[in-house]
């Protein structure tokens, strides 16, 4: 019991110290310096109307490359941990098959979820949303399939192919930037097009589409491993 009190006092001191620090930077105050630059000439330099997307993909594109490789690392890690040699995979017998409504409903909704997800990451540079959000929506679409048809298995080869391809396009786009005279990674070399048009903002939509596929494939992979963990391990404790 004393442990709880002692630790809560510790946490209280941390919170107090944080509050003291942030007292100097009140909530609504404009703390931007680099942010001003992005807002003022973000549209001119990247052509995307959604400034957050231009920051995520163009200005700080290297972060997103890192972030995508973190996701790849997680998917690979989960695959390693749940790896089961092909020969001792067993179908789980007593899976309660969901009732009829779920089966039919999911078959109808699934294409719409895919459509909605692709809409989000295609319009990443125009409307809020982008590769990550679109990809995760598509992944939850796959989830729906697992719930409706427990036995379905997405072929891991295709998933890792999509994953690899998307990652390759991202890095190759970046490397191509190095070939150019400006020679800097992830340089936006395609024409910017005019604002709010679908094909504007140079390489941003291409990258966001690649990220969309990658995130969808990886989250689907993770969920597939988890569900396979439940199904093909035979579920014994």
């Amino acid at each position: 019991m004393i442990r709880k009190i002692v630790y809560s006092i510790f946490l209280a001191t941390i919170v107090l110290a944080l509050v003291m620090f942030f007292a100097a930077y009140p909530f609504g105050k404009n703390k931007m310096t680099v942010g001003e630059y992005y807002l003022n000439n973000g549209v001119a330099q990247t052509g995307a109307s959604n400034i957050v997307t231009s920051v995520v993909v163009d200005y700080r594109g290297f972060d997103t490359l890192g972030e995508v490789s973190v996701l790849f690392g997680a998917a690979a890690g989960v695959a390693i941990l749940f790896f089961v040699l092909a020969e001792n995979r067993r179908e789980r017998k007593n899976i309660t098959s969901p009732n009829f409504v779920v089966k039919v409903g999911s078959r109808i909704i699934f294409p719409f979820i895919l459509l909605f997800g692709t809409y989000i990451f295609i319009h990443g540079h125009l409307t809020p949303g982008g590769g990550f959000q679109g990809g995760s929506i598509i992944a939850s679409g796959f989830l729906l399939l697992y719930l409706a048809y427990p036995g379905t298995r997405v072929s891991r080869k295709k998933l890792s192919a999509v994953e690899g391809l998307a990652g390759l396009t991202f890095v190759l786009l970046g490397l191509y930037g190095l070939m150019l005279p400006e020679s800097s990674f992830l340089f936006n070399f395609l024409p910017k097009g005019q604002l709010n048009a679908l094909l504007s903002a140079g390489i941003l939509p291409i990258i966001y589409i690649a990220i969309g596929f990658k995130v969808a494939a990886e989250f689907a992979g993770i969920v597939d491993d988890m569900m396979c963990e439940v199904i093909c391990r035979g579920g014994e404790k």
Partner: protein
Amino acid sequence: MIYISWILIILMLILAVVSIQLKNLIAAVVAMGATSLIISLLFLLLQAPDVAMAEASIGAALTMIIYIIGVRETERSEK
């Protein structure tokens, strides 16, 4: 705008405490999902639609599903 955020934040904190204290793990995970849903609402209030969508779809949906699969594989209730 201030009052809505007060209510939402207090609700979020209550849900967080609940999700920690609940014995039934599934309920705890659902409570955690609810907190991240409220957080995505807060992001909307903070004029950050991108992040709200990301938080909703990744934080609330996918993480919660993965947790529930995890709980199904292990024990349903604490102790």
